[in-house]
């Protein structure tokens, strides 16, 4: 039976000002139930101030087979990383 219940992805914002982060998935029949379940499964220990739920089928994921063409061309192009600038001492957290 549980195979028939749609899967949802849950995103929690732990503090105001931070971004929502993916924290896991769960089963629910619709958005309202997904929200209730997310509250029970993921935010019972004071983890969040905001929840997003999205049905997993609505997420388009990159295919693992395509990782070569998608990501590898970037590995040998160090000049795309802003690592050649000298940062002033006062500048922190860069």
């Amino acid at each position: 039976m549980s195979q028939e219940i749609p899967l949802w992805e849950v995103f929690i914002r732990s503090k105001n000002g931070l971004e929502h982060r993916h924290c896991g998935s769960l089963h629910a029949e619709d958005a309202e139930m997904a929200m209730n379940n997310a509250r029970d499964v993921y935010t019972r220990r004071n983890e969040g101030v905001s929840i997003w739920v999205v049905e997993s089928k609505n997420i388009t994921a990159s295919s693992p087979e395509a990782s070569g063409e998608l990501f590898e061309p970037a590995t040998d192009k160090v000049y795309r990383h802003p690592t050649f600038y000298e940062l002033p001492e006062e500048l922190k957290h860069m």
Partner: protein
Amino acid sequence: MKPIKELNPQFLESTENKKHLIDYLLGVADNYLILGQRLGELCGHGPNLEPDIALTNISLDMLGQVRSFYQYIAQLRGDKSTEDDIAFLRKEREYKNVLLVEQPNTDFGYVIVRQFFFDVYNRMFLGALQQSADETLRALAFKGIKEASYHERFSGDWLKRLGDGTEESKTRVQQAVNDLWIYTDELFHTTNADDAMIAAGVAPDMLQLKEYYYEKVGELLSTATLEIPEVEYFQKGGKEGLHSEHMGYILTEMQYMQRAYPDSKW
């Protein structure tokens, strides 16, 4: 919220008043304990992971509630008794919970209907208790009501889904409503101790709550496309310590550790 009236500072100096208050508190608190225990039985047995976690969370909420009440009772008693003694070392007749909360987890429909019947009551009750003349009770009510509102949302939501779901879910949940309906009236039954506390402004007026309760429950049942059963009489007894046959089994399991290993601690 402001109390309806302030408690006379000498109120609790009277032994009789104190005894009534303790009896009243047991009548309120034991519901949380026994329902919490019943829900705890479902741990690992929910229909799937999400409701399993939700129901055990609600169980823990109930046990959290009951601790504060028992701590208050222990403090009122002023002897050496602790919250654990009150929870685990009484005999069946000394528990004052309503019959509704001791009814078994027959199936998911029964679990939800029992919870729904209790949650609607509990949220209204805690809402009204925020105006208690007793300061501690006001604080406990204020603390508990957010959880209670969530519980009501959870069980109300499931009631609608099951009632307005498949033919099978509707038949089953209607059966649960029919079987458990006779236990709803007892939620508003008052003992002598309760009446004394209502008169003192410590406890809310149950007659008024009862009217709101049946209005609200009727509304939600009809949204869930379920019928309100017509019954000749309602069952009661738990509040006076007269329980159904289920209670002995609940206590046996719940009290086992304390009876087998007295004074054991975590």
